[in-house]
């Protein structure tokens, strides 16, 4: 298999079959460069090694890139794998295997930049490799560092490609390459036009590369493919800076320049006749400087007028690096169209993100919608139930290493654990406080800090890993702009599931009927044979149990720490209050509003997430003013005011 590979490479590359030579001497010539490679200089070395045409080159480059090359103290290189204190070595030329103590060897660790160059050099060997992964690596490498020279081998490899997906990818890449590097203008324009609906980052990169411009300034507009003539007055100071840089104008004095000049020209406590004491006024400083300039001892002060005059007498322009105006014109059109597509896609992506955030808020708050919304109990320990759920997930993963199985064990177990915790808390604490709702806040806050500290004592303050199974690990990628991770989709589905489940329980089951009866009129309910104690206990347990499941989900996408609950508690209460208490649909509406609102504000001010959160809370506070009962409000006497 390996020899077949070599033969293939030799055929393709057209290197004449020279007599077997050894690689080691070539490597020794460049020993220092290989041992301590730097991206800027190693390219030549790699090229030389590759150009030797030896069959061992591919293996060497691959092993080098994977940090499997070790250098003996005498300078010889080996392919080696470490096992404890010893190394199992393979001679690169003879393939003879030996072992040796590790201490005599030094591992070569080429950095990421060098590895990328190695990968580029490997492309020519790998593009036609029978091994699919090698071909994929080669294509990925082209995508990362597109070069003109790769166009022809890439094109040549398309017809023979058997893998459908890879073939499509090769065609796409070839298209990108021909847009930039094809020799015929016609070919390039055709390729460019085909990119006008492509929202991928790579396609946009191609267009942007073609449209690279440089700015310049001159007395008159120069010849060439000019992109635009600029107005210098948009940013006059930096425009003048450009003038100075092109040596077309004298530099403008800064405040500290003036200061230095003045300090150097003090004569008997005076500067050009101005007393030193007056120099605390910036205007007087300028006057003194001008006076000095009038004596010809310093350059003239560049005033605003002088600056503007200089700006107006020059042309500021932007010029394309690409000389062919036809191509840049086509690319501009394509880019504009692509940008429109991207804007639409970005909007869709933002909507997805908002939807995801809303579903996370909903999941965190839905338990509260029951305990707070339906029962009217303020449970400050709700966040800690979320945390308990997450830690349950972590503990389950300790015992069940298979992530898929462990998730399916963890979800019901988290529900059971927090359901139980909820029931215990209801029996011991909440039950005694139904007539003092404000005080449930205090008591459950006490439970909350106790639980948080307990978690710290048991698990430590450090974050614990909760890893999602492989099938949840990636992202659903529609295109380069619109994508969403599977775990978020799972959370979204989970949220929907719970919505339906709770609506079903409350509306269609006996328990739901009894819950509604108890919350509306406990006295009447108990006279009808419903045991309110049992109902309250079950309801509270249900709300807490759902918090536990939310904990597993949140832990999967974010983190598991003892303080994770407190991140969600205020948000969750706001979600329920904004949505309208006593109504699960309201919680959904509240979560949607907060999720979309927060993403919307983030979009307006993308560099500051904190501000988005702040303004979202302010918005919620204001919103409550106008709809004190929330989005989905109960009216009339049932509202109970």
């Amino acid at each position, binding site marked *: 298999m390996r020899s077949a590979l070599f033969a293939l490479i030799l055929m393709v590359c057209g290197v004449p079959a020279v007599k077997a030579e050894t690689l080691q001497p070539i490597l020794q010539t460049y020993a220092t460069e290989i041992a301590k490679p730097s*991206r800027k200089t190693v390219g030549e070395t790699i090229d030389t090694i590759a150009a030797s045409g030896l069959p061992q080159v591919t293996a060497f480059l691959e092993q080098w890139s994977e940090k499997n090359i070790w250098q003996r103290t005498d300078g010889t290189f080996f392919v080696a794998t470490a096992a404890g204190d010893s190394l199992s070595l393979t001679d690169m030329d003879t393939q003879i295997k030996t072992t040796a103590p590790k201490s005599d060897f030094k591992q070569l660790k080429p950095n*990421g930049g060098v590895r990328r160059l190695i990968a580029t050099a490997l492309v020519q060997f790998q593009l036609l490799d029978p091994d699919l992964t090698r071909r994929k690596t080669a294509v990925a490498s082209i995508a990362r560092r597109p070069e003109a020279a790769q166009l022809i081998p890439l094109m040549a490899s398309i017809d023979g490609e058997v893998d459908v997906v890879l073939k499509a990818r090769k065609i796409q890449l070839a298209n990108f390459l021909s847009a930039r590097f094809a020799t015929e203008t016609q070919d390039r324009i055709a390729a460019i036009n085909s990119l006008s609906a492509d929202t991928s980052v790579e396609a946009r990169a191609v267009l942007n590369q073609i449209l690279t411009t440089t700015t310049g300034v001159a007395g008159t507009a120069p010849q060439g493919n000019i992109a635009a003539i600029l107005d210098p007055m948009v940013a006059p100071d930096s425009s003048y800076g450009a003038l100075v840089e092109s040596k077309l104008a004298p530099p403008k004095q800064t405040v500290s320049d003036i200061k230095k000049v003045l300090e150097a020209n003090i004569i008997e406590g005076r500067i050009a006749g101005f007393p030193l004491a007056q120099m605390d006024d910036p205007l007087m400083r300028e006057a003194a400087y001008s006076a000095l300039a009038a004596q010809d001892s310093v350059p003239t002060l560049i005033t605003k007028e002088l600056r503007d005059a200089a700006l107006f007498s020059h042309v500021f322009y932007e010029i394309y690096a690409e000389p062919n105006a036809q191509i840049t014109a086509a690319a501009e059109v394509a880019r504009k169209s692509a940008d429109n597509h991207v804007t639409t896609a970005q909007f869709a992506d933002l909507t997805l993100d908002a939807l995801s955030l809303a579903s996370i808020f909903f999941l965190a708050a839905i338990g509260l919608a029951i305990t707070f919304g339906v029962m009217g109990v303020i449970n400050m320990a709700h966040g800690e139930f979320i945390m308990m759920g997450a830690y349950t997930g972590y503990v389950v993963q300790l015992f069940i290493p298979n992530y898929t199985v462990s998730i399916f064990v963890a979800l019901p177990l988290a529900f059971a654990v927090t359901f139980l915790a909820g029931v215990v808390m209801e029996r011991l604490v909440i039950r005694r406080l139904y007539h003092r709702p404000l005080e449930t806040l205090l008591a459950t806050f006490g439970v909350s800090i106790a639980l948080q500290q307990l978690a710290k004592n048991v698990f430590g303050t450090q974050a614990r890993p909760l890893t999602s199974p492989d099938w949840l690990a990636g992202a659903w990628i529609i295109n*380069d702009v619109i994508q969403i991770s599977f775990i978020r989709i799972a959370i979204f589905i989970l949220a929907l599931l719970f919505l339906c489940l709770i609506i079903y329980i409350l509306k269609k089951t006996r328990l739901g009927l009894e819950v509604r009866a108890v919350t509306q009129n406990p006295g009447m309910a108990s006279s009808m044979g419903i045991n309110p104690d049992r109902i309250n206990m079950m309801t509270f347990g249900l709300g807490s149990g759902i918090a536990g499941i939310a904990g597993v989900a949140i832990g999967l996408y974010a983190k598991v720490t003892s303080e994770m609950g407190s991140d969600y508690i205020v948000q969750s209460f706001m979600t329920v209050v904004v949505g309208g208490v006593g109504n699960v649909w309201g919680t959904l509406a509240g979560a949607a509003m907060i999720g979309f609102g927060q993403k919307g504000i983030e979009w307006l001010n993308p560099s500051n997430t904190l501000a988005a959160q702040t303004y979202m809370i302010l918005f919620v506070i204001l919103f409550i003013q106008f709809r004190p009962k929330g989005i989905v409000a109960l009216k009339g006497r049932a509202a109970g005011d």
Partner: protein
Amino acid sequence: MSIRSTLLSTISAGVLSVASSAALAECAAPIKVGVLHSLSGSMAISETTLKDAMLMLIEQQNTKGGLLGCELEAVVVDPASDWPLFAEKARELLTVNQVDVIFGNWTSVSRKSVLPVIEELNGLLFYPVQYEGEESSKNVFYTGAAPNQQAIPATDYFLEELGVEKFALLGTDYVYPRTTNNILESYLKDKGIAADDIFVNYTPFGQSDWATIVADVVSLGEDGKQVGVISTINGDANIGFYKELAAAGISADDIPVVAFSVGEEELSGLDTSSLVGHLAAWNYFQSAESEANTDFIAAWKAFAGEERVTNDPMEAHFIGFNMWVNAATEAGTTDVDAVRSAMYGQVYPNLTGGTAVMLPNHHLAKPVLIGEIQADGQFDIISQTTEVPGDAWTDFLPASAVLKSDWKDLGCGMYNVETETCVQLTSNY
């Protein structure tokens, strides 16, 4: 939250005496070493390790015969991750417990809280954590990295070795990332990177919703330039960030990330298999291969437990403590002023090889290491510079470029080289 712990803590300083195996010569009183690290609250996880490291170092020193013929005694207090409480406890250590030196603090804000107290009472503090610089106190020795010992070399590595042309500076919204990013922005502009090619974003502590930000970073690649992320994201927030990065399928080959606050400990909260190849810059990694390091790790595991890992601030304490011992021995006293004079020029071997030197600006000269994350959660060191002298005032911000710190000859931590005057003798809090 400071509030719940303000009363009566004077009587409550926990005094922990470290027993010595060697019977020490007659000595008026043991020499007291204050340890000011949070043992509870959010910083406990990081700082407790440093407290243990200090106890180990003191025990080792006592085994060697103590200092100046006296036994060393650790005075451990708990400022509970509560910044005002740091000032309160520092005052207690210096006035009530009469300690000769303090080793402590982690966060910048806690250091700023302690500074006025230390300066008022002329104490001596060794600060072991990488920080944002722009500060120089007569009473503090900074044994952690200044920005030019961590951020600048890492950025150089990005520019030179990875060929990064477009930078995303992502950070948690507090002083260290803010200042570091300011310095880096200015540095990158000096290096010819256009302002449009630098994307800066700040997120709150504990941020968990990273989807949009990661998407923003990916879209930076749309003009075909190589994108790199410089992360000053702090603590737990890293977990969500790396998870989202992995979910989006971004490998270190596509968009490399270099982090300044991610060490072995932060990675333990994650499945690192999808993060292989991303980077971190420190002055020390546990994986550094040297005899001194092997010994240190062995001693640490014997003292604290087999499962414990070592990290960069521990090395800083290791160097700082030993330098202090040597300086006090040279000075023949633990008097703060005498020890300070003796500190300048102190040399001590690094755990990563080479030697650290204490400079007149109270910073160390140390090598900078860049490591790639491996699947097992350790770092593979792929780059190590020679010793870089720490710089209190960065050269890349105009306001501090003119400032210089030299306590040895100029006797000033904030010396303006343009006007040749000392701006102030106390530090800016």
